């Protein structure tokens, strides 16, 4: 039990790392990773939705009729996304302004729906929470890593919280602005995928 629990948790951190191994949920990955702060904020919001929706879907898996399961999943996910949106407006307004439309778009993020459909609807609540937490943390770390690469090259800084850089290259650094634009996101993601694929999968 404990062993399989750990397995469900850690698979999200490496073998099924959402953006790089499964290459899923790329819309927020490309759009919000202009800084580490944005990436991690988006990741935490997604993790919250993933864990809550996985728990609820798994608790209700025997009650939800198979024919309307997708509709039920969407209702559950949308509820948690709206809660995240309201909480973010109340307690992290600047982050809410930066992430904007991508918070409500978590509803249609295929990672969240995918975990409900493929995992939580077939497994117990504890396993489902472990799965959601693993995938969510993996997603957060991936967004943070891509955000770090893009922010470092594109702006010469690394920002973790409230727009205050924890690291800065100083005013002499000539930023590679391209990395902050949309094409830079594709290039950054592509290079990271390339580097990850150099490491052989077991």
């Amino acid at each position, binding site marked *: 039990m404990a062993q399989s629990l750990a397995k469900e948790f850690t698979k999200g951190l490496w073998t099924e790392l959402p953006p790089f191994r499964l290459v899923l949920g790329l819309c927020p990955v490309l759009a919000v990773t202009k800084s580490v702060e944005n990436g991690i904020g988006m990741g935490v919001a997604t993790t919250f939705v993933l864990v809550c929706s996985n728990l609820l879907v798994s608790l209700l898996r025997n*009650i*939800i*009729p198979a*024919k*309307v399961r997708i*509709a*039920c999943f969407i*209702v*559950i996910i*949308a*509820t948690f996304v*709206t*809660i995240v949106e*309201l*909480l973010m*407006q*109340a*307690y992290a*307004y*600047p982050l809410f*302004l930066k992430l*904007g*439309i991508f918070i409500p778009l978590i509803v249609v993020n295929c990672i969240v729906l995918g975990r409900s459909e493929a995992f939580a609807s077939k497994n117990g609540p504890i396993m489902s929470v472990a799965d959601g937490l693993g995938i969510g943390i993996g997603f957060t770390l991936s967004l943070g890593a891509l955000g770090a690469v893009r922010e470092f090259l594109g702006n010469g800084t690394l920002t973790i919280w409230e727009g205050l850089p924890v690291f800065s290259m100083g005013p002499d650094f000539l930023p590679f602005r391209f990395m902050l634009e949309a094409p830079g996101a594709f290039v950054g993601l592509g290079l990271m995928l390339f580097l990850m694929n150099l490491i052989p999968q077991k």
Partner: protein
Amino acid sequence: MREMISMIVVLTVLTVISGGLLAAVKSGTEEQIEIQVLKFQKAPAIESIFPDVTNDPIADRFTIKTEEMKLQVFPTKLADGSKAVAFETKGTGFGGPVGLMVAVNINSDKVIDVRMTAHAETPGIGTKPKEDLFFVSQFTGLSIMDTDFNLKGSGGVIDAVSGATVTSNALCTAAVKAKEVYQKLKPEIIKQMK
């Protein structure tokens, strides 16, 4: 038949619970969200309209309550000694309500400046009136008593931002609303400003 009933029942119960939960969270966070909007949307707009006033319009704000509405008013005094107020009205844009902060000189009844505030418009398209200040500069100096703030196409005097017609229209609707509100509440505003 049984299957159909169970589908209907499950979906109905689920949506009812979701709706109830969301209503609870919304009413729980409403106050805090208002504080945040004041700090991050209204305060920067007011600061950019009144760059060098001596008082703090945010701290001096007061609320006027009438039967239909609640209006937050930010009072200040201009360099030439005349009194001015700023208040926010809303129009409906592409992604929901769009806020417009309107500043009016009470002595001359002229618009000092306006700013777009909270909105949910499409980034890069509907947000143009917020970034490009040409659109809002059109309001400066117009009389709030007798100007038609609608877009030129609707018989007014304001040019829309190309590509952001719906948002421009929302802001103009907000300005027309501001005109109505100001005309109706001006005596009340002056009374409360002392």
